[in-house]
């Protein structure tokens, strides 16, 4: 077995959440969507008041089928995008806890003495943990969302077939290639944008003597508080806040334009999926614009600095906290 692969596998052996959390998320997606389909099936459970009078769950498929094509697309794609965003958010939180534990846990349980008795350099060790955050987590997020999309479409297609025999309608309305393409670009942006945060988390993990999460959250929170509370307006608080929403993005639905825009905070670039007049276009902004943002580069630089510090700290650490 290749040693880099062995090092990565070792991370996944230790952090079992990488295995069960995506499965639990998919289970929830399956359950929630099946529940909706089931309610439609048995009817009478949900009565939604609308401008056009009460709406029974049983009427939902019919209502949906009567909508214009662009509205149908909007509903299907919004559902898929939202599901993906939730999965991304949850797995990103998992990544935060992983990074915080990665260099602290081994000191706490003394296993650092064993890891360091093997001919693996500290640079390689820290690099492996970073690789989990920048590669394994995004790939997991992507795979989980793809599976979730298929589950959502499958469950409701089965349900819709009962009413209209239209088994393939939802698959036609969903723009999977577009969504997946946009989402993978969003993930790359997300990794680049949150790189300094990853570095910071690794540094806190290597440096903290107890509960790294306290230092990791408290220090930036204090900086923001002092900066805004005393109205110093140095801009530092703003810089930190900007990086804080690691996986949060807003979804804007412009009804008039019938456009759906996925807006990410990452570097302020707006890019998204425009569903306009039944035509779906993927607008990603220009990746070059994103990369020409000085902020993006400063972030990478700061991240690299923290990672260098984490490596340096690990070089001189034994199992004493």
């Amino acid at each position, binding site marked *: 077995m290749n040693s880099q692969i062995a090092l990565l596998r070792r991370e996944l052996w*230790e952090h079992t959440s990488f295995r069960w959390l995506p499965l639990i998320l998919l289970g929830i997606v399956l359950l929630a969507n099946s529940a909706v389909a089931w309610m439609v099936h048995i009817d009478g459970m949900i009565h939604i008041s609308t401008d056009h009078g009460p709406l029974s769950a049983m009427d939902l498929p019919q209502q949906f089928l009567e909508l214009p094509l662009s509205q149908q697309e909007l509903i299907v794609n919004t559902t898929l995008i939202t599901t993906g965003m939730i999965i991304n958010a949850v797995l990103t939180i998992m990544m935060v806890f992983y990074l915080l534990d990665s260099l602290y846990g081994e000191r706490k349980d003394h296993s650092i*003495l064993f890891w360091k008795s093997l*001919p693996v350099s500290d640079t390689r060790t820290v690099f492996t943990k970073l690789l989990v955050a920048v590669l394994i987590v995004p790939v997991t997020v992507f795979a989980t969302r793809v599976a979730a999309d298929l589950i959502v479409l499958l469950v409701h297609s089965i349900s819709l077939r009962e009413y209209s025999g239209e088994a393939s309608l939802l698959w036609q309305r969903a723009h999977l290639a577009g969504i997946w393409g946009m989402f993978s670009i969003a993930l790359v942006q997300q990794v680049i944008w949150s790189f300094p945060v990853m570095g910071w988390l690794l540094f806190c993990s290597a440096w903290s003597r107890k509960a790294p999460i306290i230092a990791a959250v408290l220090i930036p929170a204090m900086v923001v508080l002092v900066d805004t509370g005393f109205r110093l307006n140095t801009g530092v608080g703003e810089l930190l806040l900007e990086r804080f929403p690691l996986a949060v993005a807003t979804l804007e639905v412009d009804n008039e334009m019938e456009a759906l825009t996925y807006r990410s905070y990452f570097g302020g670039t707006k890019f998204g999926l425009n569903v306009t007049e039944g035509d779906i276009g993927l607008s990603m902004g220009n990746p070059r614009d994103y990369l020409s943002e000085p902020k993006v580069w400063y972030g990478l630089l700061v991240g690299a600095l923290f990672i260098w510090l984490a490596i340096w700290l690990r070089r001189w650490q034994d199992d004493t906290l």
Partner: protein
Amino acid sequence: MTTLVVAKGLGKHYGRKVAVDGVSFQIEAGRIVGLIGPNGAGKSSTLKALLGLTRHQGELRVLGRDPRRDRAKIMQEVSYIADIASLPSWILVADLLDFVDATHPAFERRKALAFLDRTDISPQHRVKQLSKGMKTQLHLALVMGINARLLILDEPTLGLDIIYRKEFYSQLLNEYFDEERTILLTTHQIEEVEHILTDLMFINAGRLMLDMPVEDIGSHFVQLRVRRDRVGDARQLDPLYETQQLTDSLMIFRDADVGRLQLLGEVRPPKLADLFVACVKGGLNE
């Protein structure tokens, strides 16, 4: 003879507290060296410096390299078992073997498995399911598989029962050790390792008190059992240390005139444990 470790004025302090106070020594290939000292004497700090696990003062070379810079390279030829169970508790034995196999170029899985076969440890066990004794066996199995030039053991039998302790050292001696290999171990239970050591290093309060091949001990140190009425005469010969036993006194002498001692009582080579106490209490300095 190849010299594996050279320390010159090796020092380590934690804040103001001095753990290792400028010790100098060499370790030659093919030896089993016991670094013996009471708790807090600086044993672990010395080992951690050798292993590149901590910063230190003074000059230190392990296999010709500086452990501060080249830990990863040095560990290709050095194995280490710490005083506390350091194997990760969450790992499966089979996965652990895979991992070491993939990351350690000098690991021979076959040898480790051969050793494991004779224990109750199964590849499907998780480390946390093993008793302390079995964890040590597992770690020893890994070490057996690594073709290392230097094995460093820090109180390897701490907390083990007598069966595991005896077995550990006998396996170490019979199955691991050969002329090509060198072992450096620390312990404060000297009786257990007395019969396997080739070299002794006594350390106390961060200072090296004695550094000598075991075979030379007899020609430098003697123990005299002397009756009460002749104690006065014996004391004039400047014993290193003295203890009372019922009707007799036991005294340990360094480089004394054995002929004169024999006139006063019974002379024999000291037990290492007694010599150790004498060195610590008598404040011997190398």
